[in-house]
């Protein structure tokens, strides 16, 4: 089962790259709205890749119970793809209704 292991490691590394980008964006971006941009998207795709890697790695020794567990793991992917953008939208909505001003080039020094 070497092929599955190689695919799992590749998926894990890709997910870690996306998570690293998301964490760097959360740290480095100047404004609340622009920080939501990496937090909303890169976390979703990184979660997708890493959960897929876990589901593939669970199928390494094949049995029907393992298939059922992998289907449950894929259910986590479905939930993440629905819930994570909804949470991001709720946070943006809270900021917008509270009247926070988006960052412009004029505030660059701050």
């Amino acid at each position, binding site marked *: 089962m070497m092929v599955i292991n190689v695919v799992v490691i590749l998926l894990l590394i890709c997910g870690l790259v996306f998570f690293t980008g998301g964490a760097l964006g959360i740290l480095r971006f100047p404004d*609340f709205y622009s920080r939501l941009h990496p937090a909303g998207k890169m976390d979703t795709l990184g979660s997708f890749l*890493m959960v897929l890697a876990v589901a593939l790695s669970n199928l390494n020794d094949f049995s029907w119970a393992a298939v059922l*567990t992998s289907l449950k793991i894929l259910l986590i992917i479905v939930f993440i793809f629905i819930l994570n953008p*909804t949470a991001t939208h*709720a946070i943006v909505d*809270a900021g917008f209704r509270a009247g926070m001003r988006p960052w412009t080039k004029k505030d660059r020094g701050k």
Partner: protein
Amino acid sequence: MVNVFLYTALFLCILMVASLYRSVFGPTVLDRLIGVNAIGSKTVILLLLIGLIYGRLDMFVDIALAYALLNFVAVLAAARYFQKRKGLYEEPPYK
């Protein structure tokens, strides 16, 4: 193969500490909320990896699923709570 999962989990922990910076020092409340949301979405993956390391993935999947739903509900409730409040611009510097 267990070592790969172990080092991946370690790197995820480092990324969670990096996201914790934003939720501790964030200038507004919603910045802290972003940091907490990022930590929560990394925790789901961390729970699955712990399940793979222990060899009990069928048990940890349920915990991860429940944690994903709980994290979503917490972030949604906090966002709905703070949108009624004004004055998210400035927080007093806690020094």
